[in-house]
């Protein structure tokens, strides 16, 4: 950091404080021995971690959220990668419009999409809430699949496929032996981003809850509204630890910064 730019440096420090410090307070509070959200914490204990891992609604919701995120990610990739190929390599009328359609779930507010699915699919068509959540999350993840794999497709030398064809590979063979391996980092990035986004989602999932299937972030929100004890802090710390693990894996594989498109260091 440059100290010759005092104004910029001060603003930057303020930005980091706002981004990071509240998270540190969550971690600090989760180790409290007391029974309220209070700072500084009263004593040191792991009692709230113990409470969190034995709180059935949280555990059930955590499993549900992981399942949903995994399924939605796989589905979004299965639908999104072929669509990306069609958009970038196929002969498609209205290419720009089609690509725009695949990115459009990013523009409409998630809460509005959630309301639409709740009203039309859950109430209107009487679909169960897991199916509707899966549809909604897959729709929401499609833009990531299309955009991120599209970016790595655009970076790949288009002539490698032709080279494979010239050497005797059928179009399908060329795709599986050359194109797909080249897309692997992009697909990995898209999968990771989709999984995390789906796991953390609140606005889309908010209205799509039922007694049988609830997602973790929404369950935590409800819990915070009802009681003010540090169990949510402990749960948050567990989620933070999991997220750090994901980030480290991301950094070791594709490079953390590259996952968020446009940043190539």
């Amino acid at each position, binding site marked *: 950091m440059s100290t010759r730019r005092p104004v*910029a440096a001060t603003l930057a420090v303020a*930005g980091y404080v706002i981004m990071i410090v509240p*998270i540190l307070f969550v971690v600090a509070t989760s180790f409290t021995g007391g029974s309220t959200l*209070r700072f500084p914490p009263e004593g040191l204990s792991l009692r709230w971690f113990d409470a969190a891992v034995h709180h059935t609604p949280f555990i059930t919701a955590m499993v549900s959220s992981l399942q949903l995120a995994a399924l939605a990610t796989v589905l979004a990739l299965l639908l999104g990668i072929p669509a990306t190929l069609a958009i970038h390599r196929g002969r498609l009328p209205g290419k720009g419009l089609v690509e725009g359609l695949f990115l459009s779930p990013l523009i409409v507010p998630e809460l509005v*999409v959630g309301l639409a699915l709740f009203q039309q699919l859950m109430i209107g068509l009487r679909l169960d809430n897991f199916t509707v959540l899966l549809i909604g999350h897959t729709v929401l993840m499609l833009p990531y699949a299309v955009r991120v794999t599209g970016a790595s497709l655009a970076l790949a030398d288009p002539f490698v496929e032709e080279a494979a064809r010239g050497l005797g590979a059928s179009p399908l063979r060329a795709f599986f032996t050359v194109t797909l391996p080249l897309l692997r980092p992009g697909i990995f990035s898209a999968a990771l981003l989709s999984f995390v986004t789906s796991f953390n989602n609140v*606005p889309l999932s908010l*209205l799509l809850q039922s007694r049988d299937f609830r997602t973790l972030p929404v369950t*935590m929100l409800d819990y*915070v509204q009802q009681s003010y004890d540090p169990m949510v802090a402990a749960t948050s710390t567990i989620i933070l630890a999991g997220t750090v693990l*994901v980030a480290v894996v991301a950094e070791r594989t594709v490079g953390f910064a590259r996952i968020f498109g446009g940043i190539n260091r």
Partner: protein
Amino acid sequence: MISRRTGLLVLPGLALLLAGFLVPSAAMLLAPPGVSPADILARLGQMLTDPYDLAIIWRTVRLGLIVTLICLVLGFPIAYLLARSTSRWSGVLLALAIFPLLLSNVVRTFGWLVVLGSNGAIGQLLLALGLVDQAPQLLYTELAIVLGLTQLFLPLAIISCYSAVAQVDPGLDDAARGLGASRTRTFWGIVAPLSAPGIVVAATLVFAGSATAYTTPYLLGGSSQRMLSTQLFSYSSVSIDWAAASATALIMTVLVFVVSGLSSLAARRGRTS
């Protein structure tokens, strides 16, 4: 290789988009169960004249704009310093700025309950310093919402600005300095205009996100500081007023569309001039 059949691969995804997004959204906005488009229009008219509803719309727009401004003022310097720094710490700091994007909004917002709550860090600090007799109520205020939203969307602003600044050739800075421009003048005359498209993208993303966010106003604004998103939720799950829900959804959607439209217009104008 271009082939006709490759184009067909778009169909399964397109089918899901239609059935799971476009059709339900259109149906919800225009014709919810038992409600006619006229009812929605009437409710919309009511909202746009009723002082209570207008206050909520205005708060949503106002807080969205304030958060956008703060995110740019804090985010651009971070992006600029990171992009221009040669220090090995810049990689770590960049990762630290991106990492919160992976972390749950609930977890991030929950932190402010600990910081701003009546038994929280700031209140207790003020008490300990003897500056106040009673810990002030910082939660459930607009300030709390602005802080919470800034925390959520600052990483997004940093990333957009960073990609923009990183594309500006540092050689241009050197050239301007060599021609006699001061550091400040170089920044405002060269770097800022060239990274303007990225700044517009950042502003759009932050505004669209903060004007439609739910978790933050719900946890930090409570029932006293309602925004469009929290209203939408209560219309559709508490009072089940489809007309009001559709009208609110329409306002939110139009708000985001107008801002995205304006920003792409600005981007296009910037490119042609």
